[in-house]
């Protein structure tokens, strides 16, 4: 260590008159913080692996769980998360360009690249919000428990619900009323509560209505847990065509509660074992919080750059330090992406 400090003049030394690793105090402490934070994330991801490894149920598969795109709907496996990953990598690149501009004392360049980084960060946080929204709301089909006790997730295109026609009056609706609002929401609530029997839905006010719905397309059941008849071989079997349709609607319209689960919350989810959703919320949430705080720190440093604080100081080391944190956030995402979405 001491050998390296020979190249530094007295101005560059720490209080103890040496400069460990020829690096500044702030930068070294940032590295130590990042190592401890990396251990936190490492611990979280390893506990995820632990739970997945000792779980007896079939674990959700990334490309089946995450296949939605904004404006385009379902059927685009992993595309959206790939876009998110790309956004974060690009914002990491703009950050390293800001650091490089800082080394040349190019204040304009630093400002430009810092602003680009902040925009990328906001895009990523927003994307994660969208991802959570979809994860919580789930698919249109949900996870279904078939009549023989088998549990299946469902893929395909859900035929649009046109309307409910009231056949038996309740406290609010009269006979013959045609309801056209909030159909999907009402339908899913009723299905989960077991309020649909043979195509007749019981509405909130107690009235009964028939459902007018378009046909589903390419309906496919993927058996996650075997039942008496529909056994799962190697934890997986697919049922398609008319048989899938029959099994699905038989269960959905059975009039029994909790045969179908839509989306995810902290008690149940449609994707797989409950720990899966817990880990998803905690790990991506914790990472999202890091991204958000990174954006806030970047904004503060960017204001400092614009005000010329670091230019007067003679070096842009603050940009470098906040850059370290920003790259770390990207680094963590690389691992979250692999373990949550790919494997």
């Amino acid at each position, binding site marked *: 260590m001491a050998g390296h400090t020979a190249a530094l003049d007295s101005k560059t030394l720490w209080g103890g008159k040496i*400069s460990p690793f020829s690096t500044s*105090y702030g*930068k070294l402490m940032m590295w130590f913080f990042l190592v401890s934070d990396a251990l936190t994330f490492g611990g979280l991801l390893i506990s995820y692996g632990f739970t997945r490894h000792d779980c*007896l149920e079939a674990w959700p598969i990334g490309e089946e769980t995450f296949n939605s795109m904004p404006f385009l709907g379902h059927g685009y496996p992993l595309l959206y998360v790939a876009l998110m990953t790309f956004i974060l990598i690009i914002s*990491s690149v703009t950050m390293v360009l800001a650091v490089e501009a800082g*080394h*040349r004392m190019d204040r304009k360049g630093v400002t430009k690249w810092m602003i680009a980084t902040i925009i990328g960060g906001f895009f990523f946080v927003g994307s994660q919000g969208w991802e959570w929204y979809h994860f919580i709301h789930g698919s249109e089909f949900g996870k279904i428990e078939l009549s023989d006790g088998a549990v299946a997730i469902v893929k395909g295109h859900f035929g649009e619900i046109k309307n409910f026609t009231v056949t038996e009056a309740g406290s609010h609706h009269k006979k013959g009323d045609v309801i056209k609002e909030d159909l999907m929401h009402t339908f899913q609530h009723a299905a989960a509560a077991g309020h649909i029997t043979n195509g007749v839905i019981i509405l909130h006010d107690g009235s009964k209505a028939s459902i007018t719905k378009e046909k589903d397309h390419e309906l496919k059941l993927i058996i996650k847990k075997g039942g008496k008849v529909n056994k799962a071989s190697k934890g997986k079997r697919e049922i398609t065509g008319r048989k899938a349709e029959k099994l699905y609607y038989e269960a959905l319209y059975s009039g029994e509660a909790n045969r179908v689960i839509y989306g995810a919350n902290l008690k149940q989810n449609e994707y797989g074992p409950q720990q899966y959703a817990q880990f998803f919320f905690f790990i991506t949430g914790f990472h999202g919080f890091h991204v958000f705080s990174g954006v806030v720190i970047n904004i503060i440093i960017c204001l400092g750059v614009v005000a010329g604080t670091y230019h007067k100081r003679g*070096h842009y*080391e603050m940009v470098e330090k906040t850059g370290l944190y920003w790259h*770390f956030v990207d680094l963590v995402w690389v691992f979250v992406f692999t373990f949550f979405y790919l494997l």
Partner: protein
Amino acid sequence: MERDDLIEYSLDAHHSEEKGVEIRKKIYKVTILLTIVTIIEVVLGAVIKQDASIWPLVKWTFLALTILKAGYIVMVFMHLGDERKWLRYVILVPYFIFILYLIFIALWEATSIKSVLNYFS
């Protein structure tokens, strides 16, 4: 007292315009590489199903590509490759010792717990 956070400590806090051009070239190269790796990962993930016979190979490919990406981010973007050799060791060696141990022990225990659960279910 003098504010020690204002003093410039690092040896390489500045570089020339010519050096900058060189560094930027390297940054763009790494960007393209990371993008390509991500595209490969997504295509593999979307195309190859988990019950395919080739899946174990794909799984290890994912892990290798992840380590590759992480390596480029840490060494180039975070400039750890440009720091002193001993700083690299101080950061990487303890981390890897802890994490490899944790991975080993977690998977070992999970296997054991699963066999117990299987026995009683």
